[in-house]
């Protein structure tokens, strides 16, 4: 299925990328994260010993969340607004 991946704040800077399209057979958010991690290089910023938050279709989720086609999946650091 096709996904739109978005990155914010420090992750956006580490990757030098604010968004990308991705074709994947992953079923869950965690599987997509693993797939991106396997690319190595700058994607190390998504490693599981780092604080990374995820949102699926603009709602916060954990790695067990199930994907649907054309979903928007965002990765970002802990939020610091207010």
């Amino acid at each position, binding site marked *: 299925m096709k996904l739109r991946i*978005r990155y*914010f*704040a*420090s992750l956006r800077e580490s990757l030098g990328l604010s968004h990308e399209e991705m074709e994947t057979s992953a079923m869950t958010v965690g599987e997509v994260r693993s797939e991106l991690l396997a690319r190595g290089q700058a994607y190390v910023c998504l490693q599981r010993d780092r*604080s990374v*938050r995820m*949102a699926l279709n*603009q*709602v*916060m989720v954990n790695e067990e969340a199930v994907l649907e086609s054309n979903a928007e999946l*965002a990765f*970002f*650091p*802990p*939020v*610091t*607004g*207010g």
Partner: protein
Amino acid sequence: MVSRVVIQTEDFNVTDVLAKLREGDLRVGAVCTFVGTVRDTRLLSGKDTDAIVSLTLEHYPGMTESSIAAMMDAAHQRFDIYQAHVIHRVGPLKPADQIVLVAVTSAHRGESFKACEFLMDYLKTQAPFWKKEETPSGSTWVDARVSDDAALAKWGIQAQNAG
């Protein structure tokens, strides 16, 4: 009717916002407001390296508005309030600038005090904003605080933002 959530780069005038929020609603007997501002941490730590030259806020357009709207729905369910309003600025800010406004109206003060604090606690850990500080030694992203997760936990909501 005032739009419930506004994300903007420009400053806001608290007096004008509060006047609009309770306009024509004679049930209102309490208006509680929180304003968050940019502090210069040098004045707290005494270290020149902590001087804040500027603070830049990034957000996730769309999710920001919907997540805050969801928080307001939760506030309306928990507390007996009439109106709630949030303004959050994004983009570059300077020390002493206003960042965020939360304003709530109710018949009596207790409900609007509680709802205002609830909304701020929620916003700190669940709304997708990120602060970047510019200091004399360079730019750094602000770290999330575990104490903000603890603040939300006292309302019975478990957050794992900083953790």
